[in-house]
Each structure stands twice: as C-alpha cells, then as structure tokens.
C-alpha cells in the first residue's frame, strides 16, 4: 500500500489551503471596496493592515482592555481613512489610474514608516485567545485557529453583503460604483461616500490585521500580505467581492497543494511566486478575472 495515494493527507492539505485562502480574501476585500467605488488600486492596503495590528497590539501592551483597544484602533483607522481621502486622493481626482496607484505606493511607505516610528519596529506577539489546537474531523487534522479565522472572514463578507444590500450608505456605494455620473446627478455626495469607503476599508484591514497578526506576529512583514492578495484580485477580478472569495479559495488551495506535492521536486520555497503564476496563466485565458466586469473600449 506504499504507492497508494493518501487521500486523507490530500484533503487535509486541501482544507488547510482553502482556509488559508479565506485569509487572503480578507485582505483582498479591502482592495475591492476602494477599487469599486473610486477606481483606485490601493497598494497601501497592506500597510493599513500593519498599522491596525501594530496600533492594537501596542495599546493592549499598554494595559488597555481588548474592547477599548479595538475601539481606539477602529477610530484611528477611520481618521486615517478621512485623512488619506482628503489629503492625498482628492487633489488627485480625475488623474490617470496609474498615477493614483503610484500615490498609494507612496502612501504605503508613509503609513508603514509612520506606524513603526510611532510604535517601534520590534516583533509583537498578538494573542486573540483562540487556541491553535488541531481538530480531528473524519480523520483529518484541521487547525482550530484556521477554522475560526475563516468563520470570522465569512461573517465579515456576510455583514458587508447585507450592508451593501440594505443600508442607505451601502446602496450609495453601489450607485457610485455602478455609474459615478448618474450617482452625482441624483445628488449623492461623492467625497463623503469615498471617505466612507476608505473608513470601511480601514475597518476591514483592522480585522485582517488582527487575524494575520496573531498568525504571523505583528511586524513589518505583515504589510507584505498585500503581495499575497494581489494574485487573488487578479484571479477574482478587481471589482467583485464574490470573485475575491472564490479567487482566495482557489489560490489558497492550489498554493498549498503545489507546495506539498510540487515543492519537493524544485527545492521548495515556491509560495512566493506560484500564486502569481496561476493568476497570470488564468489571465491569459480570461483577462477580466473570474467575476470581473468586462471593460468596454471606445475611441
């Protein structure tokens, strides 16, 4: 029975990958929110994740309770969103998308440098009180932390969907994303909506920061989760929330499977680029991504 394919092990790897993928989607959702409503490809999302996690953990280390630290950090993220929208993006309105992207690249340097200047660059451990014990489900060992993290992410997606469907602000978001000029014509206040989107993205990055931070430790490398989210976005489409969920699941699963089954043949360490390779191959077949809207081109 030595040569028999170990299906239990395979499904264990697969489930682990899917759960990790949900964590990727969590970061990617922040992108989608901003891209959908303002067309800004926000490279600073990763540094916002770092900023949120670092602020939260530093506050708890200074004796604040979990709830108080969460509230203060959420407020800080909201202020950050307001400042970014007003000081950086409003002066750049109507400029080419690549210019806006470069501005967020500069922004990510500012936020990441500022966060570490403020709170120090050392590694902090972040304890959310979730035991990372393996859970046995029909023969497979699954990390309890991963399950809870995936649950929180799923809850977050559900809350966002309800928000988009049933609240005035959510409807305004969708209106702006659908047709900016029409939204302006019916009297929606664009600057206010864009500020609200940045605040929402800040809160999403707070959740992502807590989950990723307790997984990796809170340090500079946390801002690099943005690089994990990019292939997910490419695969799912930049403007689709369901897309990045499916994209995250696919990338997570393929990445883990490749790491386990393909990695040993090429010396390992392929997780840095493998997700990009999948995303790019897929793009060649379908440039708009899985769920992305087809862009029309007119002269």
């Amino acid at each position, binding site marked *: 029975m030595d040569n028999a394919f170990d299906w239990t092990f395979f499904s264990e790897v697969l489930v682990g990958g899917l759960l990790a993928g949900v964590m990727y989607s969590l970061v990617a959702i922040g992108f989608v929110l901003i891209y959908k409503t303002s067309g800004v490809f926000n490279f600073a999302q990763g540094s916002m994740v770092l900023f949120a996690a670092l602020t939260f953990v530093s506050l708890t280390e200074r004796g604040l309770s979990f709830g108080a630290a969460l509230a203060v950090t959420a407020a800080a993220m909201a202020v950050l969103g307001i400042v970014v929208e007003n000081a*950086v993006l409003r002066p750049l309105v109507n*400029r080419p998308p690549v210019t806006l*992207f470069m501005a967020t690249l500069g922004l990510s340097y500012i936020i990441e*440098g500022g966060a570490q200047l403020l709170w120090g660059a050392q590694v902090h451990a972040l304890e959310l009180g979730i035991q990372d014990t393996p859970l046995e489900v029909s023969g497979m060992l699954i990390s309890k932390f991963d399950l809870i993290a995936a649950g929180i992410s799923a809850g977050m997606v559900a809350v966002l969907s309800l928000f988009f469907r049933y609240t005035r602000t959510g409807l305004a978001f969708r209106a702006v994303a659908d047709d900016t000029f029409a939204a302006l014509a019916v009297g929606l206040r664009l600057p206010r909506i864009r500020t609200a989107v940045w605040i929402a993205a800040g809160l999403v990055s707070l959740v992502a920061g807590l989950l990723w931070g307790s997984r990796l430790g809170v340090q500079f490398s946390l801002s690099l989760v943005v690089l994990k989210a990019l292939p997910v976005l490419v695969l799912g489409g930049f403007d689709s929330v369901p897309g990045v969920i499916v994209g995250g699941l696919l990338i997570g699963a393929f990445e883990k499977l490749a790491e386990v089954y393909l990695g040993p043949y090429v010396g390992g360490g392929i997780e840095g680029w493998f997700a990009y390779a999948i995303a790019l191959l897929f793009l*060649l077949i379908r440039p708009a991504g899985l769920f992305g809207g087809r862009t029309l081109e007119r002269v």
Partner: protein
Amino acid sequence: MSAPSLSKSNLPRWLAPLILLGIAYGVVPFAGGSYLFEAILTPFLILSLAGVGLNLLTGYAGQLSLGSAAFMAVGAFGAFNFNLRIQGLPIPVSIVLAGVSAALLGVAFGLPSLRLKGFYLAISTLAAQFFVQWVLTKFGWFSNNSPSGVIDAPALQVLGIHFDGPVGRYLFALTVVVVLTALVARLVKTRTGHQFIAVRDHELAARVIGVPVFRTKLLAAAISSFIIGVAGALWAFAYLRTVEVAGFNLDRSFQIVFLIIIGGLASIRGAFFGAALIVVFPLLLSRLGAFLLGGVFNSGVLEMSQHIFLGALIIAFLIAEPKGLVALWDRLTARAAALFLSQTRKANTDIVP
C-alpha cells in the same frame, strides 16, 4: 543691433551635455575623495541608468513595471556567469550578453501585455521579481555554488586598461552610462520612440494609425530590460564589487519607480535628477536628523523617517509637479534667464538711451 539674447534656444542643444561630460571626465576624477565616488557618484550613475531604462518602458511607452530589480539581478548574475564560464571573454562583451539575457526575460514577462494592461502588467512584472529572486537563490549554479551566496565580482579590465580603485570604477560606470544614455536619447527621437509615445497616449488610436502595438510594447520591454540589466551588471561589478541576490529586492524595484516619478516621467534628464535626489537625500536626512535630534535619531528611526519622507515626496510631486524635478528645474532656469536678460537689457538702455 538687437540686444544679446541668452535664451536657451540660441545655444546649441549639444552644448550643455558636452559641458557636463567635460566636467564628469575632466574635473570630477581629480576633485573628490574616495567616499564621493564610492558612496555617491557611482551609485548615482548606475541608478540613473536603471532609471533611464525604466523611463523608456514606463515614461515613454506607458507600461508600468514593478520588477526592475529582477532585471538588474539577471544582468548582474548574467555578467558574472558569462565572465566565469567563457574563458577570455572581455568584460564589455559579458556585460552586453548580460543585458541581452535581461532583455529576453523582459520579453518573456512582457508577453502577457498582449492581453493585459495597466495594473495587470504591473502584476506580471511583480511575478518576475519574485520568480527571479527565487531562481537565483534556489539554484546554486547561478552563484557558482558559493556557500554564502555572495561572490566577488571580477576585476574591471578592458583592452589592457585597468579600471581599479574608486575613480577607475567611476570612469567605467560613467562611460557605459554615457554611451547607453546617448543611444536612448537618440532612440526617443526616432520613429520607434514616437511609436512608444503613441502607444502610451492612446493604444487604440495608435493601432488605428498603423502602429504595431504589440511589437512596440515588446520592443520597449526588451530595450528597457537590456538597459536595466546592464545597470545591474554595473551595480555588482563597479559599485558593490560582489554579486548577491539580496540587494535586488522589491524595495530596489520601487526605488527605481520612485526615482523616475520624482525626476520626471518620459524625460531622460529626469532619471538623473531623480537618482541624484534618491542617493543624496538619505545622507542629508541622516546628517540633519543627527544634528537636530542627536542620539534619539538612531538607524531605525532614520530608516522609518526615510520611508515617510520618500512617500510624502512621491505624493507631493504627483499632486503638485507631475512632470517631476525636471519641470521644476526648467522653470527655475527659464525664470533666472529671463531675470538676467531683463537686467542686461535694462543696463543697456541705461547706457544708451
């Protein structure tokens, strides 16, 4: 007789570059200490060259690349391996072959631009960044199975002339940079250069007037990667004197993007202006910080404040001066010239009423 005019248009266009060359070859080598050459001038020249290369792709042809450092790494390791494995190959030939390897890779990762635009291409170049770093660290062949992964660069010697010491390496880098920059300056004025700009400004319109869009994009990627590859070879051979992957990371790629934004997109001088600022500004900041804050300003604080200042600078330039330092410089010199001109006119009319 009309009043003597000092406006720029009356001076031959080649005069300013010629004077600069005269200073760079005739004055600078005798002027400074080794610190000036090793820490400032040589890296400045090489980063400028990388900037010129990226500007061709991003500034002129409008294709954003976030993987410049990967192409620099290919250039550095390519030059090292050609030099190591082909006996008696002259250094310049190794460097040219290294540039060609980088160009081939550039075409390979530019191929997705057949179907992708904007951010998607940026992501393809990001993939190049991670993939190249992985290949060069994972496969020992590229670093000649050196256990530390850090290898000494060969001595710079061309036709029996040794480019030793800080000044020699500066002159070597200077010569390569001058030759390639002159070629690029010519290229952007040719039909091909205009096709780059046409593709950047309106891809569909370019296609309509008969520009072979896909071929133009690939050509831009190839030439740009060639230049960046040569810059990488110089970085290893003339600046660091070692060949290692670590220096060619994502931060280096961003640095090169930043320097063309700050210096000026679609401008050859822009790359030099931007590189000068990128090289000098950390040194200034560390002096200034140490002076103002003393011991509190340690290396960690320095690094973070560098990031903050650099980010702020990018955003400030994008908002207030999208054409970069070059536009700022041109405006200032034009204003100074106008001021000077009106002064001399005034002086002339005072004498001869």
